[in-house]
C-alpha cells in the first residue's frame, strides 16, 4: 500500500492530488507504526503528517497553483544515484540484527534496560516514551521545541511584510 501510494506520488502531475496522497501516505505509515507498537509515534505522525503537513501543503498550493509542468519521463543520473544509495543501504542491512528478536543489541543495551526497569519508580510514569522523551532525553526535546520555534522565526521572517508589492523581490534582482 505504502509503496503504491509513493509511486503514484511520483507519477502524478496534479500537486493537489499529490498533497492529499502524501497525507494518505502519512496515515498509512501511522497505522504501520501502531503495528510496530509505536503508538506515540503513530499519534504524532497522524497529527503531523496527515494534519499539519497536509494543511501546509494545501495552503502553499493555494498560493502557488497546483499544476506541475510535465516532467521528462525518467532521469538517468538521479536514478543512478538513488539505485546506488539503495543498494548500499541494502548491503548495510545484511548484517543488521533480525527483525523483532528480543535479544538484539538495542534491547539489551543498558540504557534500554534502565528505561524499562527504572523509569516507573524514577519518574513515576507508566508511559516510558513520555518519561524518556521529557526526562531522560529531555534535552533533545528541548532542542525539538527550539527547532519548532526556529521554524516559526524562519516562517515569520520569510512571510511577514513586503507582500503588498506583489512581485516580491523580483525588481531588485539585478
Amino acid at each position, binding site marked *: 500500500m505504502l509503496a503504491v501510494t509513493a509511486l503514484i506520488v511520483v507519477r502524478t502531475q496534479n500537486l493537489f492530488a499529490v498533497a492529499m496522497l502524501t497525507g494518505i501516505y502519512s496515515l498509512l505509515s501511522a497505522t504501520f507504526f501502531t503495528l510496530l507498537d509505536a503508538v506515540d509515534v503513530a499519534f504524532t505522525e497522524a497529527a503531523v503528517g496527515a494534519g499539519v503537513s497536509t494543511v501546509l501543503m494545501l495552503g502553499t498550493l493555494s498560493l502557488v497553483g497546483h499544476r506541475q509542468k510535465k516532467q521528462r519521463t525518467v532521469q538517468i543520473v538521479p536514478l543512478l544515484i538513488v539505485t546506488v544509495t539503495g543498494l548500499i543501504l541494502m548491503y548495510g542491512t545484511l*548484517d543488521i540484527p533480525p527483525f523483532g528478536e528480543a535479544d538484539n543489541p538495542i534491547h539489551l543495551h543498558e540504557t534500554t534496560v534502565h528505561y524499562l526497569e527504572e523509569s516507573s519508580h524514577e519518574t513515576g510514569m507508566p508511559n516510558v516514551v513520555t518519561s524518556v522523551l521529557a526526562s531522560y532525553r529531555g534535552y533533545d526535546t528541548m532542542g525539538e521545541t527550539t527547532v519548532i520555534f526556529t521554524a516559526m522565526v524562519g516562517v515569520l521572517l520569510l512571510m511577514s511584510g513586503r507582500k503588498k508589492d506583489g512581485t516580491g523581490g523580483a525588481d531588485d534582482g539585478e
Partner: protein
Amino acid sequence: MMAHLPVMQVMVPLLAAPLCALVRNGRVAWGIAVASSWAAFWIAWEIFQVVHSTGAISYSLGGWSASEGGIEYRIDTLGTFVLMVVTLVGAVVTPYALESVGKEVDKSKQALFYAAFLLCLAGLLGIVVTGDMFNVFVFLEISSLSAYALIALGKDRRALRASYQYLIMGSVGATFIVIGIGMLYVMTGSLNMANLAILLPELSSNRTIPVAFAFLTVGVCLKLALFPLHMWLPNAYTFAPSAVTAFIASTATKVAIYVLLRLFYTVFGSDYSFLEMQLGTYLLPLSLIAIFSMSLVAIFQANVKRMLAYSSLAQIGYIILGISLFSSTGMTASILHLFNHAVIKGCLFMALGCVMYRLNSVELDDMMGLGKKMPLTMGAFLVGGFGLIGVPFTAGFISKWYLIQGALEKGLWPVAVLVLLTSLMAVVYIWKVVETVYFSEDPGSVNSDCSEAPIGLLIPTWTLAILCVYFGIDATLTTFGASSAVANLMGIGS
C-alpha cells in the same frame, strides 16, 4: 555556577533568541544579541581554561548519566578550540550586524533576524558540546533551519533560491546522518559517542558499520560542502546578507568539520576510519580536486563575494587535506586552519559587507579605485587577502606551513607543490581585486560619491584583521590549542 558552564554555553544564546523575538524592537534585540554572544565568548574562554587545566569536561543533562540513558555533554580540547572559534566570530559579527543588518534587512524583521542569528549560534555550539549522536542531529537542524532563514533574507531574489537549494541539500545531508545514526544505534543500542567508541570495535567485521560510516560521512560532507557536494554553497554565500555570510562562512562549515573529526576519531576510532576504511585514499584526491578546481573557478568570478565563496570551498579542501594525511602534523594544520580561516574569511566578508553598505554591490567592475575612497575597508580586505594567500606574518601562513610539513612528512611532495601552486592561484584572485581597487582609476560612475564605511562596521572588521596578523606573528596560543587537541584526539601524550 562554574560547573554549569557547558550548559550555559548553549543556553545563553538559546534563551536570548526567544527574548529577541519577544522584544520586537530591532535595537533592543541587537543589544541582547551582543550581550549574549559576548557572554558566550567569555564562557568559551573559561571552558578553554578549565579543559586545559583539568582535562575534558563531562556534564550529564537532567542528571541522567549516559548509562542511565541520559544525554551527556563532553568537551575536550578539540571541542573547546572549536567553541572558541565559533563564539569569537559570533562576538565579532553581532556588533557588526547593527549597521550592516540595519541597512540590508527590513526594520520590522530585525528583531527576528537576531533571534534566528542567536538560534544559529546556539545550534552550532550545541553540536560542539554534545556527546550524543542524536543530539548532534537535533542541534544541527536548529542551526541549519535558522541558517536557511537567514540566507533567504538577502535582498536579491536569488537569495531565495539559494536558500531553497541549501535547504534541500542540507535536509538530504541531515537525513543521511539520521540513517547513519540509526544504523549505529541498531547495531549497538547506544547513542552516546564514548559508549559507541567502546562497542564498535567488537563489530568491526560487521557489514552494517561501513555503511553507517559511509552515510554519516557523506551526510556531514554535504553540510561542510566538500567537493563534489558543494553546489549549495556559492549561491548561499553570495546572496545572503553580509553579516550572515561572514558568520556562516566562518563557523557553519567549521562545525561540520568538527563533527567529521568527532566521527572519525571519537566514534569510529582513527584505526577504523583511516586504516580499515582507507579514508585517506578517498579524501586526499577529493580535497586536492576541491582545492585546485575551486581556486580555478574563483579566479573567473566577477562578483567578489562569490569569488570568496569559491575560495572558501578551496580552503575547506585544505582542511580536509590535512585530515586525510592522518598524521599529527596534518591534523594540527587542519585544526589551525579551521581557526585561521574563520578569522580570515570573517574579515574578508565583513570588509565586503562594508563595501556592500556603501555601494550596494560587490561586483568587481563597481569597485574600481575604491582603495582611495574606503582606505580602511580595503586595508582590512588586503590584510585578509594576504592571510588567504598565506603571506608570512598572517595567520594563513602558519596553517599552510604546517600543512606542507605534514605533506612532506608523508613524502607526498607533489601535494606540497600543489598546495603552494594553489596559494598562487589565491594570489591571482586576490590580486585581481587589489588591482581593481588600488590601481584602477575610478570611471566615475557607481562609487563616485561613496565614503568610508561607518565606524560600527570598521571596528569589528579590523578586529578580525588584527587578529589575522596577530596570530600570524604570535601563533603560540593557536598552535598550543591545536596541537593539544590533536594530541588528545590521536591519543599522544595527555
